[in-house]
């Protein structure tokens, strides 16, 4: 240790030393760019059907082959990244926006407010993630936006629980005690004194939640509850690929590989962030 370092720079350095996490970050950046730049880098229109190019294996003209309607699979995978990344990032952001304030409120307010909120979060967490998301999406109706909403609502109790736990811990610390004694209202305590301290664990949890949300979106789209055809999404591509496994196995390979890579990348990043942000861990 040389000159005093900001915690941020120390964490950044630790993260960058974590080779797998950096690999994860690179993969995530590649996919984000693919999603953003899809209209410019895509070799073809993802919706353009062609009766002369039905189920053609990968070739120089179509790197990932073509699907049952003669559409370019690479183009669909690139555009599919939009649905997946949007679902991952937007639904987790919404889950954070719902979960964190409610969790902070519960932890800081205490009493019956806390009891009710904690019970509701417990109740939602007692149903496995995907089953609750499917049920919600089913009642909301099949559409990508509804799938995202369902995932956001389903993921929010995790953040409620996390924020609540951290707020409960922080409540007993001297600095929050002091701030309260000075007459700060609870919302100010939460916003100014507790929130900045819980950003690191929230960041880790959010990264891992994005991985889970991407799988959930793919699962819902696979079941027909997410992105509606003909708009491309990795999950719905896998669903139609299943019918042509014998004749056109490449249809199932590429979208699945894309999901796997993105999810792996977010998981690696989450693990790396956890190690980097853990104030106790300088080793590894």
């Amino acid at each position, binding site marked *: 240790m040389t000159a005093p370092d900001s915690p941020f720079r120390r964490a950044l350095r630790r993260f960058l030393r974590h080779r797998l996490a950096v690999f994860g970050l690179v993969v995530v950046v590649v996919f984000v760019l693919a999603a953003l730049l899809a209209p410019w880098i895509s070799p073809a229109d993802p919706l353009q059907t062609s009766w002369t190019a039905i189920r053609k294996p990968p070739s120089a003209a179509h790197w990932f082959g073509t699907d049952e309607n003669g559409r370019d699979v690479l183009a669909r995978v690139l555009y599919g990244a939009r649905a997946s990344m949007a679902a991952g990032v937007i639904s987790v952001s919404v889950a954070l926006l719902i979960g964190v304030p409610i969790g902070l409120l519960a932890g800081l307010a205490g009493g019956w407010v806390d009891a009710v909120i904690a019970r509701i979060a*417990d109740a939602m967490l*007692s149903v*496995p993630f995907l*089953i609750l998301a499917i049920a919600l999406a089913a*009642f*909301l109706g099949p559409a990508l936006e509804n799938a995202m909403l369902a995932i956001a609502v389903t993921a929010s109790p995790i953040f409620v629980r996390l924020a609540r736990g951290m707020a409960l811990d922080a409540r007993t610390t001297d600095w929050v005690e002091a701030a309260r004694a000075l007459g700060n209202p609870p919302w100010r305590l939460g916003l100014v004194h507790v929130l900045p301290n819980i950003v690191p664990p929230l960041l880790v949890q959010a990264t891992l939640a994005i991985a889970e949300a991407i799988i959930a979106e793919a*699962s819902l789209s696979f079941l027909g509850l997410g992105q509606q055809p003909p708009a491309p999404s990795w999950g719905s591509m*896998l669903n139609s690929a299943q019918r042509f496994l014998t004749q056109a196995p490449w249809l199932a*390979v590429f979208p699945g590989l894309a999901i796997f890579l993105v999810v792996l990348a977010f*998981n690696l990043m989450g693990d790396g962030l956890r190690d980097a942000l853990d104030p106790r861990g300088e080793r590894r």
Partner: protein
Amino acid sequence: MLIWFLRRLGQIIPTLLILSVLIFGLQQLMPGDPALILAGEERGDPQVLAQIRAELFLDRSLPEQYLHWIGRAVQGDFGFSWRIREPVAKLILEKLPVTFQLATMAFLIALVIGIPAGVLSAVRRDRPVDWLVNGFALFGISTPNFWLGIMMILLFSVQLGWLPPSGYVPLTEDPVQSLATTIMPAFVLGSGIAGVLMRHTRAAMLGALGQDYVRTARAKGLGERAVVGKHALRNALIPVVTLGTIEFGRLLAGAVLTEQIFTIPGFGKLIVDAVFNRDYPVVQGVVMATALIFVSLSLIADILYMAVNPRLRTA
């Protein structure tokens, strides 16, 4: 112990009640009038609609509707499937053994892979074996179940022709065929859990290997096998047992897509079919039943935790 148990039940019951309110509330999100869906061809007949509404309590106030629903639910009556006109509870009980077989096999696969792999990677920490095992765990956790399923069908059914790609034969009918139809889905389900179990085992083993009693065991000259197997592993397994029980519950969720891909007529297929047929009572019943199973499993996990950890018993 009894007081602890009662207190634990006291937490579970309000949780389930709140969940029942939420699940009941789902109905309000639903676009359209359920009576219209149910009436089908006769939707133009106001008398039929009125009759359906009266039958389903749809003409009452919301609290009344809820009390009616929950009153029956606690007796195990989740109403009738709109689609097949059979009691929801009966449908669930019919499908549950199928999923239970699948989940049990998946769990066994996960245990057989996950625990030894976790022990091995903890003992050989930061060596190639550790990296390899960690790599596989990450692979298992990051691969979407349904894609792994499709890839396995591609390899073992389409290319090699070793296993049937879909279908299900009950264990009681033909055990060999039953295993042949469930081994792939069970592996798909188990692989993710194996990764999770491996990580937990590794972390717990690393913790245990650093403890004083392990140093004592080594100091008194015990062989490495006895130190790892008898002293470290036994203690490391305590948290793994409880986490494993909870993971078992998560298999139910994984089964949804896996059963869909392998067309296995279980619990997961029931909820998917219900979603597509807009058979909402079945959806509600399945979610409620899953919660019940999940909550019971976490209670069992707590009891197991007490049982394997004598220090907690007197508390």
